[in-house]
């Protein structure tokens, strides 16, 4: 693919102006870092950082049957959402494999917003449309609004202070996992209290036309709170310290949420949803392999995706995500290993360029806030 084929978010010009290093990601040209991955990582852990998430997709699903229909398409229980609430959930194939992980918000009685991964927008939407046939009496309408919206994630312990600078001291942010509409400097925005970093934070969606104005307003008003632009590099180290999965690496069409240790976001009490039979089977018989988190025992080269994992000299699996943790200053990662070697505390060895380095399976998350 030539560079002209990459899509650009409405914030592309701002990234270039700020000197970001741009890389292709999920079909988009995205900033990987501005000041440096480690510096941006610490900004989010200690102050506040802003990420462009305009590449992510937004679908609106509405109509009388919308809730029931989504409950047959997604693993978590949509019906338990009140208006203004959201939940993390999975879209599965017939074999229980993950097509996408996403957040669904109930924005009205019979209206839902789905926020999906950039690389999966087309696949998700086609899957949903193909399965929106006659299963419920009132066929809901699904609209792909991805191109109309821009979005940013604003993450870090000083996010509340930053929002007071934007909206006034007496304005409260929505509660965790909730979404609410605001108007900031004449820009209508939807603010949801969620994120992918393990810090307090929000994701804000706005009209694509307002993207640059909103971005610059946050950086300007956020100065006092140390707001910095952050790229995909820091987003990846932050999420991996929290053991949040990345679709395409830790999740795939061949892996189901039970194997990934994410059964919390699957409601097997629901009588029917795509992939349910397979998940029930995995739950009953036990997963053959499990997604574990590990830490390297000492200093050494950082673990990387696809490095082999060994236990007692036997190959037991492969790394799906790995990096040097800027917060812990040691190599960390996740990978699928045979169920017999997946217990917390199990010693592993990571093969790096023909040499084996010791690691230990740890409880998720790998990073916990000190306070």
């Amino acid at each position, binding site marked *: 693919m030539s560079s002209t084929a990459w899509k650009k978010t409405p914030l592309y010009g701002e990234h270039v102006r700020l000197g970001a290093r741009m890389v292709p990601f999920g079909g988009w040209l995205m900033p990987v*870092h501005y000041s440096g991955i*480690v510096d941006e990582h610490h900004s989010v852990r200690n102050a506040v950082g802003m990420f462009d998430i305009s590449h992510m997709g937004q679908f609106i699903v509405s109509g009388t049957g919308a809730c029931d229909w989504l409950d047959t398409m997604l693993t978590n229980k949509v019906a338990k959402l009140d208006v203004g609430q959201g939940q993390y959930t999975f879209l599965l194939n017939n074999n229980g494999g993950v097509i996408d992980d996403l957040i669904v918000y109930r924005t009205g009685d019979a209206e839902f917003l789905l926020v999906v991964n950039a690389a999966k927008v087309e696949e998700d939407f086609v899957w949903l449309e193909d399965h929106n046939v006659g299963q419920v009496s009132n066929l809901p309408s699904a609209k792909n609004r991805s191109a109309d919206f821009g979005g940013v994630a604003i993450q870090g312990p000083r996010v509340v202070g930053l929002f007071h600078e934007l909206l006034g001291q007496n304005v409260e942010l929505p509660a965790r996992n909730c979404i609410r509409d605001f108007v900031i400097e004449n820009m209508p925005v939807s603010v949801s209290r969620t994120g992918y970093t393990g810090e307090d934070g929000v994701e804000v969606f706005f009209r694509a036309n307002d993207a640059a104005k909103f971005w610059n307003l946050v950086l300007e008003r956020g100065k006092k709170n140390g707001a910095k632009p952050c790229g995909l590099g820091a987003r990846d180290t932050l999420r991996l310290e929290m053991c949040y999965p990345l679709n395409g690496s830790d999740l795939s069409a061949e892996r189901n949420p039970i194997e990934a240790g994410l059964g919390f976001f699957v409601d097997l009490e629901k009588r029917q949803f795509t992939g349910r039979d397979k998940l029930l089977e995995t739950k009953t018989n036990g997963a053959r392999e499990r997604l574990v988190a590990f830490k390297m025992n000492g200093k050494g080269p*950082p673990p990387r995706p696809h490095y082999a994992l060994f236990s007692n000299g036997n190959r037991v699996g492969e790394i799906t995500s790995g990096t*040097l943790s*800027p917060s812990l200053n040691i190599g960390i990662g996740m990978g699928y290993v045979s169920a017999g070697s997946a217990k917390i505390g199990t010693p592993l060895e990571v093969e790096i*360029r023909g040499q084996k380095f010791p690691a230990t399976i740890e409880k998720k998350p790998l990073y916990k806030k000190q306070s």
Partner: protein
Amino acid sequence: MNVPDDLLYTRSHEWIRREGEKIRVGITDHAQAELTDVVFVELPKVGAQVEAQAAIAVVESVKAASDIYAPVKGTVVEANDALSNNPALINTDPFGEGWIFALKIDNPDDLKNLQSAQTYKDQIG
């Protein structure tokens, strides 16, 4: 971007400083800026005989592992052990304290294949 005039360069972003029969090698300011935060360096073994363009060291940033190549044929005579404890020297002083290894070269004529500072500047634009 700093590109000292008195050094030679490879297309793969190593710099080479001639010191009599030996050359000292590191990665350029441009390369360290592209990699950002270097977190680990795998050094070549002193005494190893290496061919030109052989991958003999690895510089790892948070994001990725990058091979470092021997610019010419020779024998490794020094490796910068300071990088084991402080790999970030490659970021803070790429042409000085951040050097990676030194080679005793087999044939000084081999250096003719390397690029001048001006050619390297043109390469990185």
